């Protein structure tokens, strides 16, 4: 895969580049500012790893670059890295419903295997949301009725779906059979009114539907 890395801290950028290369990917650009990140994203890489906070303003330049690039190239797979996770940003990233979105704490880089797994999921058009932000997104008390319709079990399946896990992986986490999980996902899609679509996109839209109803 052709990978773009945008990160201002040299050590972390270097580490990410080496990590990607160790997993057999090609790093086509490793940049350290917002404008450079936007330029690199516009070349349409297979996946991009972007830090939220980048020079020159050290605000949310990386996030803005990712959002701009995804408006121009819908579905461009971007994995956002940050020292902190905010539902506000997660909602903005997910809003277009196109998938190919990752939003992870920088801490996750510590576990190289899981991190590269997330990168692969994003590149494949899925989602890879940090468990922390998923907990914040889905963990709020219910106010809208359609959501209360989800059972506790279905909600935990939805949470893992939001993290971007496949049915097999979810089955592994919840100690259930894959068949049971696929039954749960079908019910969830039905309850949230998400129609037939490619499987990954449907998963993203299920999460979005949940969030919308939550408002």
């Amino acid at each position, binding site marked *: 895969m052709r990978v773009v890395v945008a990160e201002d801290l040299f050590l972390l950028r270097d580490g990410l580049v080496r990590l990607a290369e160790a997993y057999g990917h090609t790093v086509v650009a490793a940049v350290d500012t917002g404008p450079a990140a936007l330029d690199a994203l516009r070349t349409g890489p297979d996946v991009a790893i972007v830090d*939220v*906070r980048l020079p020159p303003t*050290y*605000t*949310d330049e990386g*996030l803005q670059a990712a959002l701009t690039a995804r408006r121009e190239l819908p579905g461009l797979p971007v994995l956002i890295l*940050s*020292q*902190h996770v*905010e*539902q*506000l940003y997660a*909602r903005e990233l997910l809003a277009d419903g196109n998938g190919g979105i990752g939003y992870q*704490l*920088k*801490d996750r880089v*510590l*576990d190289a295997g899981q991190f590269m797994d997330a990168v692969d999921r994003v590149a494949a058009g899925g989602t890879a949301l940090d468990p922390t932000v998923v907990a*914040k997104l889905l963990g*709020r*008390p219910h*106010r809208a009725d359609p959501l209360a319709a989800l059972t506790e079990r279905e909600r935990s399946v939805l949470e893992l779906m939001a993290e971007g896990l496949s049915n097999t992986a979810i089955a592994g986490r919840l100690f259930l059979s894959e068949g049971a999980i696929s039954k749960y996902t079908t019910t969830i899609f039905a309850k949230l009114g998400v129609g037939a679509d490619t499987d990954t996109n449907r998963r993203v839209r299920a999460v979005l539907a949940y969030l919308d109803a939550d408002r």
Partner: protein
Amino acid sequence: MRPAGRGPVRWAAEIALGGYRSVLLGALTGLLPAVGVTVGVGGWRFASSWSDRLTAPLPVRVLAACGEALMTAVWVAAALWIVGVLLARPIAQTCRRLAGRWLGLRLAVEYPPPVPVVQMATGYWWDGTEYHSSEREARRRAAMNARFHTPQLRYDGLWLAAAAVTVLPAVAVPLTTLGAGAYLLSRPGLPVAGAALVVLGVLLAPFGWRVFGPVAAALLGRTPRDRRDERVERLEAIRTDLTRTQAAELERIERGLHDGPQARLVALGMSMGAAERLIESDPAAARAILSEARAASATALSELRSLVRGIDPPVLVERGLVDAVRALALDAPLSVEVRAALPGRPERPIEAAVYFAIAELLANAAKHAHAAHVDVDLGYADGTLTGTVADDGTGGAAPSPGSGLAGIERRLAAFDGRLDIDSPSGGPTRITLAVPCVLS
């Protein structure tokens, strides 16, 4: 206080009230001029009697008259001074009370209490300025000083002088017109003119005394020096408070770093060392230690994150106040609607103060008011940033000392901001904070 009723009843009441107030004000403000005139006239008669039988050339007589006039002036000045010093305070205080009762003006001023006397090691008594051999004498002097050596007395004297040339003539016009009319009526000859004067006096009665309001408001209130002192006192309190808050904050951060990430880094280094030693002899154990070390580093990171959030919330840095408040709303355990219209960003410290204030208000709404829904409004008008947090909870919020609300009030006070709390028991609560600032 205006009389009740309508039409003629009301007019009659206004006239009676105006007459009564005019008489009262005339007596209060006319006292000093009356003393001055009496002493002046009497003194001049007495002094001019000295040169009654003087037969001398004209220049000498003029000189004598000048001397007598000067003498009279000295007596008048002395009389006014004595009466002024003794009566300025009671008269000014009475006028303040009347202004409060009649016009609702709050003109309370503070007269300094006598300085407490102390006995020195030498046995003498110190009254704040001088030593005295007896305690009684020291107390008497302290009381005198407090009574007469105070700037407020000068302002009270100024009021007497100003009232004599403003309030007195204004209340005198209807009273003298009325008096002159009554006099003419009682004499044969000019009944029409007398009646006209009485009617005029009656009609003027409700208006003459009204000049009292503006003059009293201008001269009887707290003096500029008092107001300045008060402001200095308030600023000093804020400064002390800020210094203390800042020290406490630094201590909290220091403790957070010391107990959390710092300790974990030490542990991390030790684990690495152990792993280094074990890597040859017992690779499995080394691997276990290393994975533990990784977990420790993750914990250190999350501790740092929550610490940073308390110092300067990252969303606030990255997005500014409006989005930071939106993020707060999303994270809040209750339904929060944010409406915001800010044409720019305030300065960073103000932004942070408002952010933390709203965060605390939201937490209160959830924790204490048991609210289900909160509306947050952010706006900017006339150079003031306002934030309103309104919930549908149980109400009864009050800034008792040491409470979160008092803390918010203090933090906003540092920017000349204020907090308005409307929280009747039983709810709903509506809290508005306003901070004057410039947006960029």
